[in-house]
Every structure is written in C-alpha cells, then in structure tokens.
C-alpha cells in the first residue's frame, strides 16, 4: 500500500491547532485565516510584514523605550518600541492629577519652577537628555528643558518622578539641552536674545544689551540633584542659539551650539521693517559655536566668571581672551548640530540649505591651534575659516533638520519640507560599514508629514544600536480620524535594519497630548525602575525612609493649638483614621503612608473642595498641608480602583464652622 504524502501545510496547521488547543484557543488558525483577515481589511503583504514586526501580543514586553518630550503638555511621555504603546506620562512642569503632581505631590518641586515668584504651570518640553556614562545612556536619570520659561528638570528613573526644577536665572527662553559624556554637566542653551538677568532694554539696544547664554548645570549623581552653586554660565552674542550637543571621544571636552539669527534682526513688521522670518534668514550662513567646556570650567574655578543676577557668568571678553569660544560659518538657519558616534564629525543641517554640512573635529582643532581665522564677528569672537574645518557637504533634500546615527555607518537626517527621512553614508572610519560610497545620499523614505526631530536607538550616543528610527512628525493631516480641528501628531516607526533603500515605515502612533520635539530611545534592559518603593514609609522626594511616615498601629489625629496633624495609613480597602474632625481655620498637616507591598496596589487620596489629589504608590508616604477654611462635611476617597471594595475606601473630613 502506498501512503499519500501528507502536505506540509496540513501538518503545520494541525500543529498550530494543537498548540492553539493547548493554549486554550478554541479555533484552529492557519495562514489561510491570516490571508482572509488581511483581505477583509485591505492589507498588503508589506502591511502584514510590518504588523509581524511590530504587533506585540498581550504580555510581551517592548525591547526599547522612548523618552519623548511632551511639547505643550510640559511632560515626558514614555513609549514602548516596537509596539509604540504609551506606557506612562511623567509629570514635569505641568500639574497632573493622576500622579497627584501639583495637587499634594511635588508641589514644592513645581514651586522651584516659579517664574519671577509666580507659578507658571505649563511647560514646553523640547529636548530630553538621558544621563550618560562614557557617552552612552545609563538609564539612571533624565533631564528635560522647558523652552517657554528656560527651565530644566531632573527626573529619577528609579520611580519616573521629577525631583528638581531649575529656573534659568539669566535668560527667558531656552532651547538646547544635552549632557556631557559622563553627565558631569547638564547643558542648557538659550534661545531668544534678551538682556541677561531680567533687565529691560529696547529693541534699538539689541546689539548692546541683549545676549545669548549657555549654562553648565553641575549634576551630582549621588545626590540626584543639579547643584546651582557649582554651576556657571557663558555669555554669548545675541544670536538665537539653538541646539547644543556635547562632544564625545575624539571631541570630548567640547560642546557645539548652532545659532540662527546672526543677522540680529529685531523684527518690527508693524513699522514696515522686515518680519523676523525674513530678517533672521537673510544671511547665507550663521554661526556654529565651538566651546571648550573643560577650559571654561577651569576659568570658572579660577574665579574668571563675573556675578550676574547672582550667577557666575564668563563674559564674551574672557571667552575670547582664554580661547574658550570659536565660531565657524554654518549653512543658514540651522536646526540641528549632531556629533557622530566617535566624536570625530559634527553634522549641521541648515534648514534653508539642501545640504548637511559635516565638519571634522580634527580640522577644527588644527584651525584653532593655527588660528586659521576668516575674521571675527561684531563681538570680536574669532571665526574659523569654513574651508579649513569642513569635511563634506551632502545634498540630502529640502529642509534638513536633525541627524541621528545608525550602527553600520549610515546617518539619517530629517527633511521637513520634503517630508522624508534621508539615509546617507558617513565617510572616514565609518565608511566600510555601508555598500555605498562615502558621503552620499542613499535613500529617502517619505513620512507623513513634516518631520521635525528623528530618533534612532541610542542614536546620539557613542554606541548607536540601529534597528529602529522614529520620525517625530508635526503634521498628520489624513493619517488618523479627525478629533476636531486640533489633530494629533504622528510618530512613525521606521525599520532601519536593512541597507540601501530598505527602510520602510512600519507603524504610525498618534500623539494627542501636545507636540513633542526630540525623544531618545534606550534599551529597555538598561532601565532598572522600582516596581514598589523599597520600604514602607518611603519619601520619594528624598529617596529614603521618612522618619515621620505614619506606621501601621500608630494611626492618630493630634492637635497642637490650631494645628491638627493626621497620621494615616492607607491599605486595601481602608483609610485609618477615616474620620478627621477639625475646626474651620485649623491648619491640617495630613501625613499618609501606603503600607502595601503588592505590585500595582496604588491608592489615591482625593479631597473635595480643597483641590487635593494624591497618588500613593506601594510604600510611599506623602504629606499634604492645608488650611481648613471651608466648613462642611467632605467625603474623601481613594481615587484608584484598588480592590473590589474600592468604593467603600473613603472617609469623612468634617470641618466644623466657627
């Protein structure tokens, strides 16, 4: 008897069915079902491949994590890659009720960001900077700037909570933010020219009175804080300094800042003067600032800085005399300055010039040493001769903005006007990684639409990992359902594992919470966040046990004059005490500890009329202080659905009228 051969597909289907049954799936599934479902939804093979590369079934975890600026939201958004799922929002400059941020949690931190003594409770977060060790992300800290009010925040990645906000004492708005290769300094560059230190000056005095600046915020990793007393600034010309990137390896010890209004245009469109958009873009070139920060640090330590608004500032004159600052021409109105992984090349894109311009740091050093100047600017700052420092110019397309690096010798530049991401080859020691010749445009992948920044995995470190690149698009136009006229932005995931023209978009993520700018992508396994606070009674602001934290069995309400102190424990599903009786006008110091040790056993503490919402994560202790000025009976409750008896987790605050 001859046995009919069993088709492989049947065997596979049977095996799949068997596995399906074992896994508890009722129906057998085959590739035919996949095809049917794809046809029903009009999906192509490319779509299915993209789905296979990105679909992340329940329980599977992402390999990489994006820390994205939140734009207008004033927050940071944490997104998984390749799933492109939003995992968390970190409240930074803006109150956020879920985390209790500004409603009982972090009020002191938010107050550090007061501007001229007044709360400014929104932020325009632009550039996140993960802490680095030897030029690569270490997953410990995150810094982010607020452009509107020139503030910088420090976020602890053990609990994803903001620990410190610093208001720039000199300038009004900032733009660039980066860290030095070992996070010795967090560097904040100013944006628009203003008289430093909140002085007043007219537009006619722009050249004399207005200035740019860069602050070197000293970071103390052990304390987890920026130490303003050990920080210093450098005065810069009133060009609009834009982005800043720190040199690494070959260029360690230097920072690079680009600038766009070297014309020093002051607008005045109502007086028939050229509007800013024209005045600022008149010159063919602007200035790349090259700063020797180690030398600047030495000058500061030797007392070479002058106090301005109580902050040490190295003047332009000192910078020139000490050789701290050099300029070199860069294509007009640049938006990005990005250092290649080995620190040997500086890539600048002038957004009104179709090229990326690549400078050699070796040549920069030589030009500085040989004083190969083509002149000096109005403030006497020496300008390095462009031809002496440039390495290559590559025509990539219209509106080049920002550059990121792959792991194999490719660089990627966003093209705002072309709505595309360009892939081009680096030369020098990166050249052999790619099949194409050095310094050539390889491919442009269209993106939808108007890309600003792009981010590759570890794409701005000494060790880029390739794999994925994300295009942070400003417009989405027709990509998503329209939620009214304010449309979501579009984060597009691009697969960059292939070579040449193989770099497809494989996922679109709508971003409906403010317009992000830059984002960094880190290997998920480098993050070591806590699942619960290490011990019960933990004060997240101090990252240690709080001796004042209420303990189980020690719950009480005490009174001292008109001050009432509540010592409350919080556990599923009760507040203890659940009656708090005070008199109108009493000051209440309400201390509470979540005594849970289970992962995800989070409780909220929400009090009506008093604008209080606290998030208590397992082990966390929080103290809120308020004056009970409104009499009445106020049911407070747990605002997290913590258990089956969550609704019953409540208590009464009784404020007896006078």
């Amino acid at each position, binding site marked *: 008897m001859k046995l009919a051969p069993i088709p492989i597909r049947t065997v596979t289907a049977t095996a799949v069915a068997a596995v399906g049954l074992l896994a508890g799936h009722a129906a057998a599934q085959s590739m035919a079902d996949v095809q049917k479902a794809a046809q029903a939804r009009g999906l192509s093979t490319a779509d299915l491949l993209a789905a296979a590369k990105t679909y992340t079934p329940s329980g599977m975890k992402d390999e990489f994590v994006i820390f994205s600026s939140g734009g207008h939201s004033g927050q940071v958004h944490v997104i998984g890659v390749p799933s492109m799922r939003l995992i968390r929002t970190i409240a930074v400059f803006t109150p956020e009720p879920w985390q209790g941020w500004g409603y009982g949690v972090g009020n002191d931190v938010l107050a550090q960001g007061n501007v001229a003594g007044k709360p400014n409770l929104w932020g325009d977060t632009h550039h996140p900077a993960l802490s680095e060790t030897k030029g690569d992300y270490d997953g410990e800290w995150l810094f982010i700037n607020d452009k509107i009010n020139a503030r910088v925040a420090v976020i602890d990645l053990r609990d994803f909570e903001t620990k410190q906000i610093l208001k720039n004492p000199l300038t009004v708005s900032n733009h660039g933010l980066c860290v030095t290769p070992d996070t010795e300094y967090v560097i904040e560059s100013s944006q628009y020219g203003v008289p430093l230190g909140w002085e007043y000056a007219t537009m006619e005095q722009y050249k004399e009175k207005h200035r740019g600046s860069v602050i070197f915020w000293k970071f103390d990793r052990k304390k987890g804080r920026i130490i303003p007393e050990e920080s210093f600034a450098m005065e810069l010309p009133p060009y609009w300094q834009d982005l800043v990137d720190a040199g690494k390896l070959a260029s360690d010890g230097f920072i690079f800042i680009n600038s766009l209004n070297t014309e020093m245009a002051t607008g005045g469109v109502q007086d028939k003067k050229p509007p800013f958009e024209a005045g600022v873009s008149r010159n063919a070139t602007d200035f790349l600032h090259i700063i020797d920060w180690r030398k600047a640090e030495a000058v500061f330590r030797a007392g070479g800085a002058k106090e301005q608004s109580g902050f040490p500032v190295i003047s332009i004159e000192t910078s020139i005399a000490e050789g701290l600052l050099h300029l070199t021409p860069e294509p007009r109105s640049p938006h990005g300055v990005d250092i290649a992984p080995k620190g040997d090349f500086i890539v600048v894109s002038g957004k009104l010039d179709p090229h990326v311009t690549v400078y050699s740091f070796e040549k920069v050093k030589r030009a500085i040493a040989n004083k190969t100047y083509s002149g000096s600017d109005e403030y006497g700052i020496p300008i390095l001769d462009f031809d002496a420092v440039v390495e290559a110019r590559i025509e990539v397309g219209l509106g080049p903005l920002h550059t990121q690096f792959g792991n194999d010798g490719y660089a990627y530049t966003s093209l705002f006007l072309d709505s595309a991401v360009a892939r081009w080859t680096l030369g020098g020691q990166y050249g052999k990684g790619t099949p194409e010749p050095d310094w050539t445009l390889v491919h442009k992948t269209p993106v939808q639409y108007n890309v600003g920044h792009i981010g590759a995995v570890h794409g701005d470190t000494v060790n880029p990992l390739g794999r994925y690149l994300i295009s942070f698009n400003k417009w989405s136009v027709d990509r998503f359902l329209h939620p009214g006229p304010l449309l979501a932005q579009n984060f597009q995931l691009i697969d960059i594992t292939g070579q040449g023209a193989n770099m497809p978009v494989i996922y679109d993520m709508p971003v409906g919470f403010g317009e992000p700018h830059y984002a960094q992508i880190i290997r998920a396994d480098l993050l070591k966040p806590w699942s619960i606070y290490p011990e019960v009674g933990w004060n997240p602001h101090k990252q240690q046990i709080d001796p004042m934290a209420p303990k189980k069995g020690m719950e009480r309400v005490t009174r001292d004059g008109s001050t009432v102190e509540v010592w409350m424990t919080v556990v599923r599903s009760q507040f203890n005490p659940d009656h708090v009786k005070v008199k109108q006008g009493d000051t209440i110091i309400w201390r509470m500890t979540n005594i*849970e040790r*289970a992962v995800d056993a989070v409780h909220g503490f929400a009090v009506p009329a008093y604008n209080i919402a606290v998030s208590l994560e397992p082990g966390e202790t929080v103290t809120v202080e308020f004056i009970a000025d409104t009499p009445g009976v106020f049911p407070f409750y747990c605002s997290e659905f913590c*258990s*089956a*008896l969550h609704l*019953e987790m409540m208590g009464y605050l009784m404020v007896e009228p006078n």
Partner: protein
Amino acid sequence: MSLRLIERIIGPRVSPEETWKRSLRYGTPGFLLLFARILLLVSLFLPYWHMELQAPQYPSGLHMTAYLNHLTGDVVEIDGLNHYIGMRSLYEAAQIEREVGVFIMILFVVLLELAAYIHSRWAVLLVAPVIFFPVVFLVDLQLWMRHFGLNLDPDAPLSNSIKPFVPTALGRGGIGQFVTIATPGIGLYLATAASVVLIAALFFHRRAYLPLVRQQANANERST
C-alpha cells in the same frame, strides 16, 4: 529507682571488642540514629510547607513558606486579602509551635542520642515521638487551618459571600477567585525520611540487642 531498673532500661552492654568484631550488627542502629539526627538538623533550615495562591490578577501567584520557626513569602499580602473574609492574621497561627519548634527539634536530637545508648525496648519510647513528628506536624497544621477557616469574623466585608470553610493542609483547594495549592516542603520530606530511617533503626536495634536481652533475662532467671 533501683540499680536493677536502670540496668534493665539501658539494657545489656556489649564489650568494645565484641562491638568491633560484629560492627555491622551493633553499629547499624547507632549509625541510622545518627543519620536521622542529621536529617532532622538539616530540616531545621529548610521549608516544611508551601502554600501557593493563584488568581488572575497575581500572574506569578502568591507564595507562602512555613519553616519550623517562621513564615516567609507574601504573608502580608495574603493577610491583607484574608482580612476581606475576616480571617485572622497568619502570624497569629501556631505561635507556640513556631516558638518551640527549634527546641523540640533539639530535644529530638537529644532523645535519639540517648536512644543510641539504650539497648532495651525502652529505646522505642525515645524514638517513637520523633517517628510520629511529621504526622503530628500535618495534623497540627490542619487543625490550625480548620480553626482559622471556621472562625471568620462575621463583620468582615465579604462575610456574606464567603462562608466559613476548612482549607486543606495538603493538596488543592479554592476560595473566591483563588486556587490554593498546599505542598510539603523539603524539610518535611527530610523529617519523613528520618521517620523511615528510625523505623529501620529500631528494626536493627531489635535484631542486635533482643538476643542479648533474652540471654540476660535467662541468666537472671537461672541465678535467682
């Protein structure tokens, strides 16, 4: 107590030469008693009992481990859940047993040490409590679980839906959305192994010394 009685209890003595000559016969009971002592001492440091609770919202389960003298694992979390059904804290269960557990074990070791020197049937009296220990442990555990399960606080939040019940000391059970799986720990296995070893020890003890006891009895009869 007369000298005679003590002599009868400790049983006939065997000269060192004789012991040496017939080391297998006289050495085996002593060796097995020593082995049992080692098993028991080691078990002191090992878990005696595990309880796992499985529920959808605890993907890796909740685990509790009982040693002779302490509880480890997710006891706080299990206590927290138990409060909904009005069960007392697990820390209140078998407090005396956990306090004296180590001393009982030391006492057992001493008893077995003594048993090695007693060459009469009285040795059984010393060894028997040790043999029965694993059973006593489980019976005690079951009694505590029964006591806890049947005496739920009638004012507890879920007293309407969860009625008093008797959890099982070993095997699978269920309460609410939880599946409970109780299993013996290595320590309990070692103690059980010690019991088996001790039964063997008694067998070889009897084979070694019963003839001597009989000889002695006959000799005594003749002399009177």
